[in-house]
């Protein structure tokens, strides 16, 4: 209980992961660093950038942590300590399917779980895939325009296993989300010495995924 109270005052770290074709690029953002006290709570600083080949990760049995991923976890553990880490993983748009969701009359009072099952069956019927192999999210863009964003379950299983290994390697809590990179086209990465490390251009999407966690969505 005392540990939970102590963690209330601890600022979280934000980890953005960009799933590119065969690579995973990671950027860690944070406010509280031992050597950058002046910029505390002002701008997030880039605390680390990593690049791991996805093929090496997926080639190994899921029961073991890949060595490359274990090295990344070790470095992360040293940086974040007991602080919580918020993770945002962006998958390429090509791994997602957007389905137009026709509005259907509601029958009685339905719970969000029932809505989720309904959307999953609808997407499975549209894609002719078993519902259990799909992950479906519903987006209501306007009153008459809604979409079902669908991906296959094996993608989130792979990412989920990696995040589970990451959670086991650090001391703090882990809050993770897996979402499509969406319609992001231009990323302006911050420049300057006061922003921590210099951001590699290839890690711009990973930085964006981490940074979107820090700012409230519009």
């Amino acid at each position, binding site marked *: 209980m005392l540990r939970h109270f102590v963690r209330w005052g601890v600022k979280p770290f934000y980890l953005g992961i960009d799933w590119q074709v065969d690579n995973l690029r990671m950027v860690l953002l944070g406010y509280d660093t031992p050597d950058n006290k002046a910029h505390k709570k002002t701008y997030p600083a880039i605390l680390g950038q990593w690049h791991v080949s996805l093929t090496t990760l997926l080639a190994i049995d899921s029961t073991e942590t890949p060595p490359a991923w274990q090295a990344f976890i070790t470095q992360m553990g040293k940086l974040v300590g007991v602080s919580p880490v918020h993770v945002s993983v962006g998958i390429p748009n090509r791994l997602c399917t957007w389905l137009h969701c026709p509005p259907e009359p509601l029958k009685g009072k339905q719970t969000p779980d029932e809505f989720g099952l309904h959307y999953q069956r609808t997407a499975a019927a549209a894609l002719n895939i078993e519902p259990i192999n799909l992950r479906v999210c519903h987006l209501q863009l306007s009153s008459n325009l809604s979409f079902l964003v669908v991906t296959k379950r094996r993608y989130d299983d792979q990412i*989920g296993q990696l*995040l*589970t290994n990451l959670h086991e390697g650090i001391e703090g*809590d882990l*809050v993770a*989300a*897996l*979402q499509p990179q969406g319609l992001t086209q231009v990323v302006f990465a911050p420049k300057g010495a006061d922003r921590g490390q210099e951001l590699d251009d290839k890690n711009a999407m990973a930085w964006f995924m981490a940074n979107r966690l820090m700012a409230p*969505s519009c």
Partner: protein
Amino acid sequence: MLVWYQPKVNEVNFLPWLEHAIAHQRRKRTWLYSAVAATVLLGLAWFGVLYAGLQQAQADLQQQLSNSSVQLQLLQRSVWASSLERRHKQWLQAVERQRQFNAWMPMAQLSKLLMQLNTLSGLVSEPKLVSWQWQPANAAQLELQHQVVFTIAGQKPWQAWWQQALKVWPTMHMETLEPKAVGWHLKASYTLQPQTISKGAAALLIVENSHSISSPKTFDLQLTPPPYDGIRPNSVNSINRPAMEQSFSAMASQLEKYGQNVQMTRSQSVQANLKLGPSQWALLAPIPSADGWWLQGLSIDQAPSNQWQVSMQWLPHNEPSFNVVPVEPFSEAAQEATHTSTQSSIKRYANLFEVKNLEPQSDPPSKTSPKVVAKAFEFVGFSAQPGKVWVAWLRSLTDGSLVQVEVGHIVDGWRVSSVGAQGVSLTLGSQQMWLPRACLIGVCKL
């Protein structure tokens, strides 16, 4: 803790946040149910423990009360037992006082009557006693009330004496007033009204006098021990034949003071007939008495030979009588003064009787002659059941009605003195009559 981010509206998260949320809700619900069940179980257990504690406390309290009650009873019994001898002595004293009082009371009443007769002393024509009877007023309640029936004879106008007598006995009423050849005969009776006290009240008097136990009225426990029967010499459940014989012999020895002219018969009752001269009239007081015997009747008839024909009858009595006039704790001097005045009043009347010439009683007392009663009733049956009083049935020859009689009952003025299988003995003063059974076997046909 690993948590999949729960997306808000129009946000996407492909990680299994929904399963995670459902599992989290399930865990939370399970924990909630478990907490509620544990709370209920703890509450039930607490109530159970509390109830068991209350039951235990109640049982302990009842046990303490029971122990206290037992100790109190033991203490009470010890106190009660320690005072047994003193209470026995007090009881015997009370019984003796009662017996003495009963022995003197008929004579006291007789002396009062004689004193009233002496108020016109010196006159030749003063009222004279013809007969005097002491008998129970009600046949059903032999011990409760007594009645005095007397007959006097005089020559002077009777109104003055009657007015004086009414002041002494306000309840007295005249039964017959007959003119005779010389003077008149007046028969009157009055009933003694005793204050009835029960045996239990009498026993409580002794208890209260002993001051051995003070029972608080507000406490609900039974503090008075059960009635103690052991101190009663002649209780109902312990009829002591040797004691009865001893008391009978004591009464017989008291009868010896009247000389050798005492005819004493004993059946179910004790009958004594004797004749006393004027010099012996004062010896009549006190009446012989003994424990276990109750004076059921006493009659005095004036014989023509200047003698009193006295007839006494006693019935066996199992318990000391407390139903007569209660005996006040008189001092010895007061009792002695009462006894002396009683005897002196009788002596004075006897002296006056001796000095004047008593006119011979030309008319005998108007009693039913034995022949009349023998013609009026017939003995037809007899019943003796264990534990009950022997009864006999007499049939009235005049109207055919059946009369059930016991020893002590009065039939046409005759007192039943004994009841047996062979007949019934009737007594009227000094006269006796025997009604034999009319048939030889079984119950006589009506």
